């Protein structure tokens, strides 16, 4: 079986959620099939400027075929088209929305042409992230062999008129969560398309060293952890506000450690410490050393770091306004969630004051991870989907004969 993974950008140094998700799945499915990645030459998701050379290179044993972006994104023009199309989500004309998609990029007609010409060379095409030019036009070109991993968030974009037909086009859809599936089904009425809630596993560490982490980073006392881009869009400003108020109201000695690149001015609160970007191993050690993980983002299609915290047997305190996170906490019985400062204060006080509860939630988290997000489970779900599509095709061929 030969699989092509189609994604907007790809590289070992690219940390974006969907792109990393794609790389992990491609590398794991390479144990079961011949895998190739088809992507653009871009590395930056703002401009999509060509960065990598066009052609084929091998990354972690996977051939990666790159295609040039015809023109990088013009931020001013993209902003104009966004202003024209997005506020009227679901009411714009398809022509306007397609133009917006082209402006969003990565505008790589070469990649789409390659898919059209080489459709017979592959058994299945797995597209990641529904919202990009390469996915929309590429998937429509090879729809009878396509699987889509939408990585959709509840940001209103799925209601643009061009996307419901996209969600009805592939042979199967691989969802990250039941909430994502419900949202897409609600927007596109695609119940006839086969689907499975799969998600993604993680690159797990061989061992954890929480004491070493505390020593190396000079961390003392108990602390909550945030991992990810420190950004207003990720709910970090509210998290800082809530955390400082919590310490003021309760006199708690709890600290807050931040791991990741910051695009937000950090508060001058000595209890909040920014460690910057850490290696994967050190991030895992931080997860093992913390009391809990804070996940303040409102827009998440899966949140890999939440799953990783659960594997490390740590409880999570998540933003209840993100349906996916709230649903994951309920299903796993491994995290609490807040919709207001009062709930944040009560939840955090409970987790801080009752380590037994934190341990119990953490144990549930590990069990949930092993049952749903361990790599053998994820790989099996993908392989079963491929097998089901092939079986359906065989039945149709036999019926036609």
């Amino acid at each position, binding site marked *: 079986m030969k699989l092509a993974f189609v994604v907007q950008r790809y590289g070992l140094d690219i940390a974006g959620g969907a792109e990393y998700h794609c790389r992990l799945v491609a590398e794991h499915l390479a144990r079961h099939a011949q895998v190739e990645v088809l992507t653009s030459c871009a590395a930056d998701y703002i401009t999509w400027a060509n960065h990598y050379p066009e052609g084929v290179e091998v990354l972690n044993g996977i051939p990666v075929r790159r295609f040039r972006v015809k023109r990088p994104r013009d931020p001013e023009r993209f*902003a*104009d088209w966004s*202003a024209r199309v997005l506020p009227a989500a679901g009411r714009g004309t398809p022509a306007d929305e397609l133009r917006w998609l082209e402006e969003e990029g990565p505008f790589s007609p070469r990649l789409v042409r390659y898919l059209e010409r080489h459709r017979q060379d592959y058994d299945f095409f797995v597209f990641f992230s529904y919202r990009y030019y390469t996915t929309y036009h590429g998937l429509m070109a090879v729809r009878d062999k396509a699987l889509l991993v939408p990585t959709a968030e509840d940001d209103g974009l799925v209601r643009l008129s061009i996307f419901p037909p996209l969600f009805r086009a592939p042979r199967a859809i691989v969802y990250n969560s039941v909430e994502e599936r419900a949202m897409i089904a609600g927007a596109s009425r695609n119940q006839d398309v086969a689907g499975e809630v799969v998600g993604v596993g993680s690159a797990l560490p061989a061992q954890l060293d929480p004491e070493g982490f505390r020593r190396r980073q000079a961390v003392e006392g108990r602390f909550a952890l945030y991992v990810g881009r420190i950004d207003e869009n990720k709910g970090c400003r509210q998290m800082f506000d809530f955390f400082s108020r919590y310490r003021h109201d309760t006199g708690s000695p709890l600290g807050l450690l931040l791991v990741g690149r910051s695009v937000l001015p950090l508060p001058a609160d000595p209890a909040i410490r920014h460690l910057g970007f850490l290696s994967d191993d050190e991030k895992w050690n931080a997860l093992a050393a913390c009391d809990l993980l804070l996940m303040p983002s409102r827009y998440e299609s899966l949140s890999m770091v939440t799953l990783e915290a659960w594997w490390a047997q740590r409880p999570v305190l998540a933003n209840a306004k993100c349906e996916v996170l709230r649903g994951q906490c309920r299903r796993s*019985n491994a995290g609490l969630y807040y919709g207001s400062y009062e*709930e944040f204060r009560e939840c955090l006080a409970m987790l801080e004051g009752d380590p*037994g509860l934190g*341990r119990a939630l953490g144990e549930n988290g590990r069990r949930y991870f092993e049952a749903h997000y361990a790599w053998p489970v994820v790989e099996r779900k993908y392989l079963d989907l491929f097998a089901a599509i092939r079986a359906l095709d065989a039945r149709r061929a036999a019926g036609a004969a």
Partner: protein
Amino acid sequence: MSFEIKAEGVDVEAIMRGIRQRIEQKREGLYSDEEIREIAERRLDGVLDAHEFNSDFIQDFRAQSGRWNFQFGPETLYRSSRGLVGQLLERVRSLLKPVQKLFWNPNPMIAALSRQSDLNSYYVLLLHNLAVELTKLNLELQELKNRNLQLQGRLDLLARREKTLEGMVVYRDDEGSEGGGGGEPA
């Protein structure tokens, strides 16, 4: 006494229900957020007791945003208000956009003015939220003062009762000694 919580026994939804109940209990006797917002938007001066404070400022700002704020987008610079001629003028300006960009870069100015317009709206919202918070604190203060008065009243009552009881004990002792006999009390 400490005990171990079993992971199987944890029910996140039940915990969250408990947390919400506790929050509700804490709010009992105080105004809800909705009520506070309503009061703040109706008659702020009544609560704030600030005579020079315009209690209707939020409504004024909201109703007349065009007067106190400006709208600025990427196309504002190129617009015209001269009807049909203006539309033609706008098209010409649009066509000449690439040429004018040879002389200067309007993007930083457009971005700054657009951001300023957004900031103005945020400041109004911030003022509004501060007023709501101040109202809430004032109401809580009044509530605490009332409770303090109630407690003071109860304390006085208890003190008087204590004195009366003390007097009764003295009176009974006196009565016993005055009676003289060693008979059993009735």
